[in-house]
C-alpha cells in the first residue's frame, strides 16, 4: 500500500468532484498518464455521500495545505510555491439538529451510542436484523447504530433518462458500475396541498384533479411542444410563463407545466422552458414511470464510477495524501508537492476549492442552500415505497425549492426512515430559505401527526461556482473545475468536463466505449505462450468433481433478465 508515488505524469488532478472525475476517466481512457490525488480520504469532494456518522465530521472539511517550512530547499531558480486549497469555496453555515431523544427511557442503563467502529468482526444486533427497525420509535442512538445504512448526499442529483449523463454512461460503458432506481412520482405544492403531477398520458387520464377538458388541453400542449418550431419565434424574448398563458391553459395546468414539468420559474425564458419540457417528455417511458433516475446508494456513486473507469485504464489514485503545495515558474504549473516529494506534470486540473486562494479571490460568490432531513414517513404516504421528486414553486418571495425524498429501497437509509433533500438558490440562510416548506410539510415535534416527523436535520450552504470564468486568473496549463450546481441533473458538469478535455487534448475522442471483460485478452499472447505452465490441474478435481472448465466465452457478463414490470 505504501509505495512511493511515481514522479512524472501527463496530467495531475487534485480533488475528486464530478468534473474532476469525468476528466480523470476521459484522460486515462485515451492513454494519458494520470495521477488523481487528494488530501481527503474519501471520494467525491463536495459531491460525496456519507454515512450518518461521517457526514457530521466531514461536511466542512477542506483545510488549506501550506508548503513545508523548508520550501526554499525544494525550489529551483525562478520557481515559487502556492498553497493548495482556499477558504473561499468551502461548505458554510453548517448546523446539525437532533429532534429526538438520545435514547428511550428503558435504554438508559443499556447500550450507549455506538458509532461506526473499527471492529473487524462484529456489527450491532440491529444491523444484523434488518426487520427489527420499525417497532420502537427512533432515538439518536438507534439511528447512529444504523449509520452505515445511510448514504447522505452533499449534492443530490437526478438524471433525465435521456439526458447527457445517461447517454455518456451507456456509450462509455461506465453504466456497468452503477445502478439506478426510477423516480416513481413527481409532486408539486398547489393551492396549499401536495398534488401528483401527471407525467405520462396514463397519469394525465388517471388524475382526478384534472378535468376532462384540462386533460385534452394538456395532452394537446405536450404533443405540440415536441415539435414546436415556428410558433416559438414570437417568444424569443418572452418567458415560458407568458407562452403558457397565451395557450389559454387553466392556472392549474400552467402550474404543472411551468414549475413541475419544465422546472421553470416565472422568469424562465420561453426557449429554455420548452427545451426542459422536451427533455422531460423525451425521457418519459425509457426506464420507469417518470423521466428521472436516481443512483442507488447515493449520488456520490457517480463520481466513483468515473474514478473506477480511470483506474481500470491505468489512472493512479492516491487519497489521504499529505499535499503540501504547487510549484510554478514563468511557464506556469510545474510540479505538485506531496510531503517533500515533487511530482511533475504537463497540466494540472483542480476542483475550485483546491485552488490557491490567489486564483479565485476576486470571484463573487453565490450559494446553494441545502437541507437534509431524516424522517419517519413519506410526505405523501402510500402502500408502496415511492422515490419522490417534489417541485415546490416560488412562493412569497422565496426561491423555488427542489425536494427529493428517498426511501430505504434506494440504499440510502434504513428501513422505516426517509431521507429528504432540499435544494434551493440561497437568498438568506438555508434555515430561513426552507422555513416555509418545513412548516407546510413536516413537523419537528414527535407525537401523533399526519406530517412526517423530522428526526434529524442538517443545514448547510454549498458555493455555486458555475457562472464564473475559471480560466481568467490562472496560468495556461492550470484548469479549475466548478463545484456543484443548482440543476437537477449533471449535464452542466459534463459540458464543463468536455470543454476542459477539448482544451487539453483537442481532436481526441471524449470517453469512447470501454471494452467488456470478455473482449479483453489478459497478458501478452506471444510471450505468454513461451512461459505458460498449465500443469498441476489434477489435484483440484478431488475437491469438487463437477467443476467444469471455464466456459467464459459463451457466457455474457450481463445479468439475465428476470420478470417484467408490473
Amino acid at each position, binding site marked *: *500500500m*505504501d509505495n512511493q*508515488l511515481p514522479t512524472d505524469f501527463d496530467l495531475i488532478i487534485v480533488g475528486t468532484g464530478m468534473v474532476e472525475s469525468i476528466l480523470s476517466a476521459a484522460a486515462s481512457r485515451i492513454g494519458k498518464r494520470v495521477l488523481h490525488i487528494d488530501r481527503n480520504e474519501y*471520494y467525491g469532494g463536495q459531491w460525496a455521500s456519507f454515512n450518518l456518522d461521517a457526514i457530521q465530521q466531514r461536511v466542512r472539511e477542506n483545510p488549506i495545505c501550506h508548503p513545508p517550512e523548508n520550501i526554499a530547499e525544494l525550489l529551483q531558480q525562478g520557481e515559487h510555491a502556492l498553497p493548495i486549497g482556499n477558504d473561499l469555496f468551502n461548505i458554510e453555515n453548517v448546523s446539525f439538529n437532533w429532534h429526538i431523544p438520545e435514547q428511550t427511557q428503558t435504554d438508559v442503563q443499556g447500550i450507549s451510542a455506538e458509532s461506526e467502529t*473499527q471492529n*473487524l*468482526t462484529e456489527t*450491532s444486533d440491529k*444491523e444484523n*436484523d434488518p426487520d427489527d427497525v420499525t417497532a420502537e420509535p427512533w432515538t439518536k442512538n438507534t439511528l447512529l447504530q444504523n449509520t*452505515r445504512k445511510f448514504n447522505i448526499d452533499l449534492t443530490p442529483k437526478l438524471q433525465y433518462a435521456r439526458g447527457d449523463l445517461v447517454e455518456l*454512461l451507456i456509450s462509455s460503458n461506465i*453504466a*456497468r458500475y*452503477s*445502478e*439506478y*432506481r*426510477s423516480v416513481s412520482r413527481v409532486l408539486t405544492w398547489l393551492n396549499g396541498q401536495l398534488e401528483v403531477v401527471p407525467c405520462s398520458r396514463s397519469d394525465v387520464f388517471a388524475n382526478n384533479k384534472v378535468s376532462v377538458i384540462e386533460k385534452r388541453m394538456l395532452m394537446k400542449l405536450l404533443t405540440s411542444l415536441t415539435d414546436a418550431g415556428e410558433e416559438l419565434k414570437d417568444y424569443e424574448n418572452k418567458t415560458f410563463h407568458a407562452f403558457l398563458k397565451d395557450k389559454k391553459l387553466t392556472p392549474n395546468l400552467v402550474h404543472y407545466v411551468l414549475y413541475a414539468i419544465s422546472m421553470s420559474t416565472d422568469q424562465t425564458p420561453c426557449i429554455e422552458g420548452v427545451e426542459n419540457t422536451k427533455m422531460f417528455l423525451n425521457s418519459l*417511458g425509457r*426506464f*420507469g414511470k417518470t423521466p428521472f*433516475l436516481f443512483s*442507488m*446508494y447515493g449520488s456520490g*456513486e457517480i463520481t*466513483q464510477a468515473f474514478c*473506477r473507469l480511470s*483506474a*481500470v*485504464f*491505468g489512472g493512479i*489514485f*492516491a487519497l489521504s495524501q499529505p499535499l503540501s503545495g504547487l510549484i510554478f515558474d514563468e511557464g506556469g504549473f510545474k510540479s505538485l508537492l506531496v510531503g517533500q516529494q515533487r511530482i511533475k506534470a504537463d497540466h494540472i486540473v483542480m476542483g475550485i476549492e483546491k485552488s490557491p486562494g490567489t486564483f479565485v479571490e476576486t470571484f463573487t460568490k453565490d450559494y446553494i442552500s441545502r437541507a437534509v432531513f431524516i424522517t419517519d414517513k413519506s410526505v405523501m404516504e402510500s402502500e408502496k415505497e415511492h422515490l419522490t421528486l417534489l417541485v415546490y414553486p416560488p412562493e412569497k418571495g422565496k426561491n423555488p425549492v427542489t425536494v427529493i425524498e428517498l426511501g430505504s*429501497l434506494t440504499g440510502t437509509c434504513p428501513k422505516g426512515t426517509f431521507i429528504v433533500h432540499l435544494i434551493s438558490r440561497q437568498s438568506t440562510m438555508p434555515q430561513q430559505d426552507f422555513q416555509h416548506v418545513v412548516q407546510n410539510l413536516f413537523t419537528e415535534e414527535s407525537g401523533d401527526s399526519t406530517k412526517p416527523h423530522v428526526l434529524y436535520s442538517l443545514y448547510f450552504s454549498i458555493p455555486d461556482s458555475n457562472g464564473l470564468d475559471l480560466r481568467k486568473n490562472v496560468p495556461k496549463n492550470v484548469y479549475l473545475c466548478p463545484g456543484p450546481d443548482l440543476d437537477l441533473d449533471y449535464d452542466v458538469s459534463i459540458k464543463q468536463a468536455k470543454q476542459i478535455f477539448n482544451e487539453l487534448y483537442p481532436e481526441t475522442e471524449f470517453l469512447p466505449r*470501454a471494452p467488456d*471483460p470478455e473482449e*479483453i485478452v*489478459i*497478458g501478452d499472447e506471444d510471450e505468454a505462450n513461451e*512461459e505458460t*505452465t*498449465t500443469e*498441476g*490441474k489434477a489435484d*483440484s478435481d478431488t*475437491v469438487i468433481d463437477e*467443476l*467444469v*472448465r*471455464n*466456459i*467464459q466465452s459463451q*457466457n455474457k*457478463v450481463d*445479468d*439475465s*433478465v428476470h420478470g*417484467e*414490470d408490473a
Partner: protein
Amino acid sequence: MTSLSNGITREKILSINDSLRINNLHKRELNFKFVIIGDFGVGKTSIIGRYTEGQFSTSYKITIGADFALKTLEWDEDTRVNLHLWDIAGHERFGSLTGVFYRHAVAAAIVFDLTRPETYSSVEKWLIDLRRKVHLPGGLPIPVVILANKGDVTVTTLPSQIEDFCKANNILSWFITSAKNNLNIDEAMIRLTNAAIQNHHNLQFPLITDDIISLTDASENNEKMKKCC
C-alpha cells in the same frame, strides 16, 4: 445466524437446493462478485489469470481496461455459478479503492507475497478497508480468505501468527497458493463459493433488487434487471 466458518457439506447444500428448486425448471444461475485485493505485485492478476484462463504468465502487463474476469462453475445439476473476479486495477495501489469497487461483493481474497514478508503486514489494512466498505445485505461481514502466494518459491517465510489472525478476525481460512504451479487456487475459490452459497440461502440476498435499473439497452422498455448477487 450460523457462523460462516462453520463448514457446510455439499450434501446439505444440495438438499437445501432441492427444496428451493421444486418449481424451478430452469438451471438456476448465481452471480457472485469476489474481490481480490492485496499489495502491488503479490500476484493478484496472476491468480485471477490462472483461475479463469488456466494459465500462468510471468509477463502479465498491467491489465489495462480489464475490470473483472469471469469463471463459470457448473456447481451441480441445477446450479450454475458465475464468479466475477474483480481485480484492483493495476494502479489502484495506494489503498484508495472506491466503494463502487466493493459494491455487491459477496466474498474476498486478500493476497500477500511469501517472498516479500512485508506484504503480510498490509493484510490487516486491506481487511479494515474491506470491512468498512462492504457488508452482506443484512450487515454481516463478507467471507474472506487469505492467500499466501508464491508458495512455489518459499514457504519458510509464512508468518506464524496467521492462524491466530484468522481466528481473531473472522477469516474463513488461509491457503498457501501458487499461481505458477496452480496450487490451492481452486480450493480457495471453492471455499469462498461455498460460503457465498450458504449466505445466499440464509439471507436470500439480493434483498432490494426489485425495480433496480441497469443502464443497458436490455433494461429499457420497462424490463427489469436482476443484479449480480
